[in-house]
């Protein structure tokens, strides 16, 4: 399976720690990499996030979107800063969503995936939802504009 990260069109080498399954990891919570099913509770990782450098979240099908919620909770609620990888049904047209939810590495066999990744953040110049990616939303930009206008008046 090809692994992609932002910054490279071509697949990158997978040199990180080998993830262990969630049930295995739970035994001592010490392994640096863990792989979750999309039904596993991400809450259980919270006390150990400092020791984790890779969390793998799985899409059994591209149409099963549970891992998007897991990703946002890890990034935004629990403050996880390590690598967050999407595996399984990962298609290039999902990339804008995946990136906004905090994924930063992707396993995919789809043709053109690397090219799509390179342009996924700029495909849409406007976002409406605040997420952990920190992009200013349309309504935040409107407020800024309004304040600039008021200051100028």
């Amino acid at each position: 399976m090809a692994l992609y990260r932002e910054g490279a069109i071509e697949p990158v080498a997978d040199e990180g720690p080998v993830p262990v399954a969630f049930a295995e990891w739970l035994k001592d919570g010490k392994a640096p990499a863990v792989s979750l099913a999309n039904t596993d509770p991400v809450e259980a990782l919270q006390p150990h996030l400092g020791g984790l450098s890779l969390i793998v979240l799985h899409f059994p099908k591209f149409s099963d979107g549970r891992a998007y919620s897991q990703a946002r909770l890890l990034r935004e609620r629990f403050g996880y800063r390590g690598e967050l990888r999407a595996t399984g049904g990962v298609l290039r047209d999902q990339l804008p969503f995946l990136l906004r939810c905090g994924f930063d590495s992707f396993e995919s066999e789809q043709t053109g995936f690397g090219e799509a990744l390179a342009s996924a953040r700029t495909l849409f110049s406007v976002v409406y939802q605040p997420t952990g990616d920190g992009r200013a939303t349309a309504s935040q930009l409107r407020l800024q504009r309004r304040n600039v206008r008021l200051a100028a008046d």
Partner: protein
Amino acid sequence: MPDTHFYRYDDYDRSLIAERVEQFRDQVRRRLAGELTEEQFKPLRLTNGLYLQLHAYMLRIAIPYGTLSSRQLRKLADIARRFDRGYGHFTTRQNLQLNWIKLEDAPDALAALAEVDMHAIQTSGNLIRNVTADHFAGAAVDEIEDPRIWCEIIRQWSTFHPEFSFLPRKFKIAITGSPNDRAAVRVHDVGLRLWRNDQDDVGFEVIVGGGLGRTPLIGKTLREFLPKEELLAYLEATLRVYNRYGRRDNLYKSRIKILVHEVGVEKVREEVEAEFAAIKDGALKLAPETIEAIARQFAPPPLRPKRTRVPEVEALKLEDRDFALWLISNTAPHRVPGHAIVTASLKPAGAPPGDASAVQMEGIADIADRYSQGEIRVSHEQNLVLPHVAIEDLPAVYKALRRLGFAEANVGKITDIIACPGLDYCALANARSIPVAQRISLHFAELARQHDIGDLKIKISGCINACGHHHVGHIGILGVDKNGVELYQISLGGDVDFGKTTLGTILGPAVAADKVVEAVDALVATYLETRRTGERFVDTYRRIGAQPFKDRVYGAV
């Protein structure tokens, strides 16, 4: 052309829609080049409103909160002419469907829509669908606050939501700003009802888990009173709980209503409130300036109070019986004295409910420009509404609508039938809906008789997915297939109006297609013979029960 009195896109909204068209153009190109399989392409086209139906692709165009400007309606007519067969079908979810779109034309059709700040985003797929509202919003006498302000706030938040684009199943939200609910909020995944509490604050009752379809359920109150500025955080919490815990093992058990039904509303509430507590003071909390900026765009048109008693109107009432009936059934009180809300009936005798040709759309746009502030609404009952008409203009509006064939005085009456597209168009249907509606419509065409029968809602679905809302019809008709024969199951006593949401009860064995009219006739005859003064059909049914109706129907067919 008058100014619009609803949300106008700014450069942010426009950029996003334009970029979306280009993204879809590339996706269609890849599909046509064979780079995408149909399975991979399907969710992409669906989130752009493109369905593959029985005969062709169907494009479902979003009409957010059912509100259109005349300019937008003219563009819809133009698109129907250029890319389809010159007509469109207004749906029960305030959308417009074009039934004969070619895949290679779809990106151009979407680009044409974008010219008037419209799109087909999220009209399909397992995500948050186009949000619906009271079609009398901004004009109704009983309104506490215009629900469209909140629909627009939700439209923006839900558009391309990165976390909620692959939910277990579709998710429909409806909002009413009036105590007399005209948006059917109790039969949606989430229904929002604006109300004013004892402290004189306006907020939302949040209702969850309603829905029709295979398992009709009436929604339960998730939160009695939600402060308005917390709406998006609360919805995000609700959707997150649904996305994580909603069933995905069975298509028919994946709506949030099943989650609510199986684990109980108390458990769902506990989860949602816990999630909400964690995010409520975050970036989703609505700034007062944001709410005000959107609310300002829905400021009502500057209508001056006018005469309520107009001699020309009174004279025409005496002279033209159909006009007099039309005033009764097709106009509703407006909050500004001397004005009325006019419903243009898209149900002339024998016509497919909800269809309008390009010429008719343009005709309505002209009438709206001249007499209704350039504004048109689509109702969930598949009619078009002219929300701001002066009473003194009613004769002219009536005549103009009559020329278009949209002045049938039947709104709320037995021929104002809701029907899904049925087997004529839909790949899911078991039976035809439109021809059944047409036969009933022709049988009861006589207007004086319809007005004598009074308020009676017939709703027809061609399969148990219930797009024709048959569960909440006073008379519900459901098409079923029995060994290749189309049969129709009749239910009585459903109701969705004014907050008294009730599901109908099946009357008895399904009847053959050619017996549906006789059955309806027998139901009506039973009602007419037993009603008390002032009783509607559904009131009589509630008083006397099913048996007399049953005896008559199964004695007759």
